[in-house]
């Protein structure tokens, strides 16, 4: 079984986002970009399935700037993906457009499982996996903390508000990753060197004949209201008084 893992190149999670002075967005010039952390978890899960013999091939795909070939797609291959597909565009593609492109990739590649990050840490949409599942008519196991393949299906344990929930899905299926699914391995230097020889198929959005015109227009982007640092108290007694003042302690 082939596993497809879509990944996104985003502002590194350690970098504090800065809103542009003209209010058009977040400044991404000259800042560190990395693979979306949830997507690293997705690759790790796919690679582990291959290592266990449950998957035969791991294919990674990204939609975004051409530069991704030499950073996030290289990292993905170094982590163990067998080959990569770059769908190049300089434009922002919304989750609905991404899902439509991925549906075309699925048609071509025929994977048994698609594993995606549950959300990208830039637009925090949390939509693409569910949308792809809808377009393909496949079941979806979102926010996964455990994925067990067996027989003709996959059992997915999901992190839900009340705790954990388990669903049985028919294959082919969509899985989206939550934080506790696994701890992704680092791309080591020797593996990065080796990964350079793993193939990357270069495509453009136009190759897929899908309309990805954005439906949402960003009118403005602002910084949220800032909290001011308050006071420091020197003792537990003072803190008790403050809590009484707030009406939460008698």
């Amino acid at each position: 079984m082939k596993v497809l893992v879509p990944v996104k190149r985003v502002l590194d999670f350690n970098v504090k986002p800065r809103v542009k002075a003209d209010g058009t967005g977040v400044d991404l010039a000259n800042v560190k970009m990395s693979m979306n952390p949830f997507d690293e978890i997705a690759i790790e899960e796919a690679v582990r399935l291959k290592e266990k013999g449950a998957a035969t091939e791991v294919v990674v795909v990204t939609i975004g700037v051409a530069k991704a070939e030499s950073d996030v797609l290289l990292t993905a291959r170094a982590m163990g993906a067998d080959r990569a597909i770059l769908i190049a565009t300089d434009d922002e593609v919304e989750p609905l457009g991404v899902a439509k492109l991925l549906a075309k990739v699925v048609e071509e590649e025929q994977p048994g499982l698609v594993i995606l990050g549950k959300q990208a840490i830039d637009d925090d949409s949390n939509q693409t996996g569910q949308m792809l599942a809808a377009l393909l008519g496949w079941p979806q196991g979102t926010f996964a903390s455990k994925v067990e393949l067996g027989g003709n299906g996959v059992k997915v344990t999901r992190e839900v508000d009340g705790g954990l929930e388990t669903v049985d899905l028919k294959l082919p299926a969509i899985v989206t990753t939550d934080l506790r699914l696994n701890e992704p391995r680092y791309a080591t230097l020797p593996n990065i060197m080796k990964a350079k020889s793993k193939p990357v198929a270069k495509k453009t959005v136009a190759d897929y004949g899908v309309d990805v015109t954005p439906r949402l227009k960003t009118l403005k982007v602002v910084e949220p209201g800032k909290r001011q640092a308050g006071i420091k108290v020197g003792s537990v007694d003072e803190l008790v008084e403050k809590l009484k003042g707030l009406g939460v302690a008698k």
Partner: protein
Amino acid sequence: MKTLVWVEHDNKAVKDATLATVTAASKLGEVHLLVAGAGCAAVADQAAQIAGVGKVHLADDAAYAHGLAENVAPLVAKLMESHDAVLFPATTTGKNIAPRVAALLDVMQISDILSVEGPDSFTRPIYAGNAIATVQTSDKKLVITVRGTAFEKAAASGGSASVEPVSGEGDKGLSAFAGAELAESARPELTSAKVIVSGGRALQNSENFHSIIEPLADKLGAAVGASRAAVDAGYVPNDYQVGQTGKIVAPEVYIAIGISGAIQHLAGMKDSKTIIAINKDEDAPIFQVADIGLVGDLFKIVPELTEKL
């Protein structure tokens, strides 16, 4: 505009997250509700009491018992033939189902809205709430998830909507509910608690978390939360996590104990009315957002605090 709100429930009672979503929907127009579940007539009756609701659609079918997205998304999509917008609370249930509905309708979803700026424009947080975007949609139908802490809760009583049965395609045969391990706690729910006591990695282990954090929470009648680090380390289960990818909370008082204050954690709690931080590192970022800070050893401070309250 005719709106449809997904009612979050457990087949027994309406969950609080529904009420803020009703308020958001009421800013767009007429509010109808959808109660989809199994043996959930009591939920529909309760939902009909919510102030400002015009109609409750009740889809009572074993296929909808556990809110499986594969089964309920087509039902919602069908109801959207006679509605202009559908709003889900941004809970794990809403986040699971809404995008599936959006794709079926060929609509770009607007996630986690903070405000309604007009019939087609909304604000929403991006980059873990480090930026707030105002977006305008060109879609004819709207699919929206609503951040519960950003809207007042609609009154749970005072309404008298009619309940109308609806049916969908039932079980699509793609997925099945296999079980759940739901936390049972006598404490308030995190997302609706007035006071939250949250612990971080500095608690060092699960035993300390329970013996230090929980007595204080119980003294204050508070819910218990945790940072991602504490959840990843296995001190407490995932449903305790407050942050960008966990629960978003905005209680009257949030007490952060041994939490350094990574931006991903702040994203989940910085709209709390009063933030209190206890941390031994006086340079911890949590103090930059805390209204009241106490620097020191939590293992001494917290038991003393619990005792003195």
